[in-house]
């Protein structure tokens, strides 16, 4: 292994270790306690919370902001794709030309979405006022990760930079809002629990 791969391995360990810690801490804390007799059921509401309630037609944060919402979805898909490709690149799995072109094309699109979201954050008064340095840094690191991924797929000479940038992202993860990747699922669960017991979700119960 090269020196930069060792660095990446260590940072990956920190990333996975902290992710596991956050996830296990939530699991250990268990379900919320609610002594009030339930009007509805939790399980279908949690399913709804993770599915129907996420339907863009149901959420103003989506349907009133379709370009941002669409960009956000593409950006997140690009991040997950980049994470997957990170392991492929590391294991030096061979790619033929066509898949590289398609994947790179998608990552160009998704990273452009990231840049667009970054510009919007700096541009709009409400968002700028709400933002702290972490909001910008998290975006920049993830966008660079996607850019690095499609460059690394085609230009092997850039691998050291790619691995170093990825290492910085992994090390930054526990300090930042990027942790929401874990809390997101817990938040959806808790909403399902709350609205499910009260018979509000799934809709049509009350």
């Amino acid at each position, binding site marked *: 292994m090269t020196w930069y791969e060792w660095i990446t391995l260590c940072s990956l360990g920190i990333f996975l270790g902290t992710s596991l810690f956050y996830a296990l*801490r*939530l699991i250990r*804390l*268990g*379900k*919320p*306690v*609610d*002594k*009030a*007799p339930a*009007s*509805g059921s939790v399980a279908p509401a949690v399913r709804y*919370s993770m599915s129907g*309630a996420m339907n863009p037609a149901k*959420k*103003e*944060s*989506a349907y*009133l*902001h379709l370009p*941002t*919402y669409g960009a*956000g979805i593409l950006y997140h898909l690009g991040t997950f794709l980049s994470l997957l490709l990170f392991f492929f690149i590391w294991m030096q799995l061979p790619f033929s030309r066509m898949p590289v072109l398609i994947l790179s094309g998608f990552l160009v699109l998704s990273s452009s979405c990231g840049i667009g979201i970054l510009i919007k954050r700096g541009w*709009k*008064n*409400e*968002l700028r*006022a*709400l*933002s*702290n*340095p*972490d*909001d910008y*840094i998290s975006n920049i690191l993830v966008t660079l990760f996607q850019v690095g991924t499609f460059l690394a797929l085609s230009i092997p000479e850039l691998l050291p930079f790619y691995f170093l940038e990825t290492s910085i992202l992994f090390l930054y993860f*526990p*300090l*930042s*809002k990027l*942790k*929401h990747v874990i*809390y*997101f699922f*817990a*938040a*959806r*669960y*808790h*909403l399902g629990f*709350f609205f499910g017991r*009260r*018979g*509000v979700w799934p*809709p049509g*119960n*009350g």
Partner: protein
Amino acid sequence: MRIANSEMGTANSELTREQILKGLEPLGTNGDSKLLTHLNSCVHCGLCAESCLFYLATKDPRLTPARKVDLVASIYKRYHTFSGKYLPGLVGARNLDTATADEMVDLLFGSCTGCGRCTMHCSIGVDISYLVSVGRKMLSNMDLVPSTLQSTVKAAIDTGNNMAIPTADFVDTVKWMEEEMADEVGNPEASIPIDQPGKRILYTLNPREPKFYPLSISAMAKIFYMAGESWTLSTRMYDVTNYAFFSGNREEAGLIANRLWKEMEHLQCESLVLGECGHGTRAFRWESPNYLDRGVPFPVMSSVECIANYIREGKIRLDPEKITEKVTIHDPCNLVRNGGVIGAQRFILEQFVPDFIEMIPSGADNHCCGGGGGMLSMSEYNERRIGAGAIKAEQIRKTGAKIVVTPCHNCVDQLIQLNAAYKLDVKIQTMAEIVAEALII
């Protein structure tokens, strides 16, 4: 938890160290996955802004739900996360100091009704109104609840009802309403029972009823009479409201709720029917078992569900020709979005209102009227409250309805004020009032 003085920001602060420590207590996430989750979930996307009536009505970026979440979460980060402790500037972590506390009072008490609409629309699923309630609890721990709201809580604790109505006045009003009701049903023997043990139902009221709207007492009494119900009011504890639910003081909320439990035991009634009050219903039905750490040993329902049951069971009949004007319904946030009573009120109106129109949006997605969260008692925010009500006023205007029904006396109060401020020219009624009007006697 050890906190250094510098971390507490006491150098420039008028808050005492003790106040700060007490204020931070509700942010302890040990053992609370819900709190831990929601404090760590917001990504500052800002997409919740348009879901909040305060932002919609003012376009003030300070009033977005995200800013309210951030205020509470930034304090949490400062004292409970590595980056917040050592790199506070990076993640926007804030000390709990006088300036922060002032902002909390203004945003969490003065610019949020806790309606929860933003929660449903948040891109992640952050329970924003829950975090607002956590922030209110922090302020309550620091004795920073607005004095107007706290005096309402105090009145309830000291006198048994939030309007400090003397028992003799209450009894006089009920007796007067008894005569009204007896007249209407054409039976001089018809009565409004008070303090009668062993009845099937103990019924509670919003103190606004005996104080300002006594006819809503006779309306519900008429429904009970026609349904042949065995019921009673109590003079010791008839107040359905619980303003400590708004002030964030769990102990006081528990104390108020416990009185109702005790009165149920004292009068040995079978079921508790909560009068038309959104937050009161929520505070007792959903929150009090958690305040008091015990399950409810008797059935509890809202009066809307009770009326719907009477119709289903054929105990009351309604004249479909009585109400000729167009009717719409305003869904109280605490009864509907946060309480799950969504279909009962619609079922009732379907029985006798031929010209019914829904607001858009409605049901669990309805906009708050702006009067919840204790706003009606905090007169210092009157202007903001009426301003935020512009969203509801516009919703009502768009329906073209002439009657707005809402099963909540707090909402009634706010809607009456919106009616005047925005010249809506509508009649505001509770569910019992419109049903009583259409009762076939």
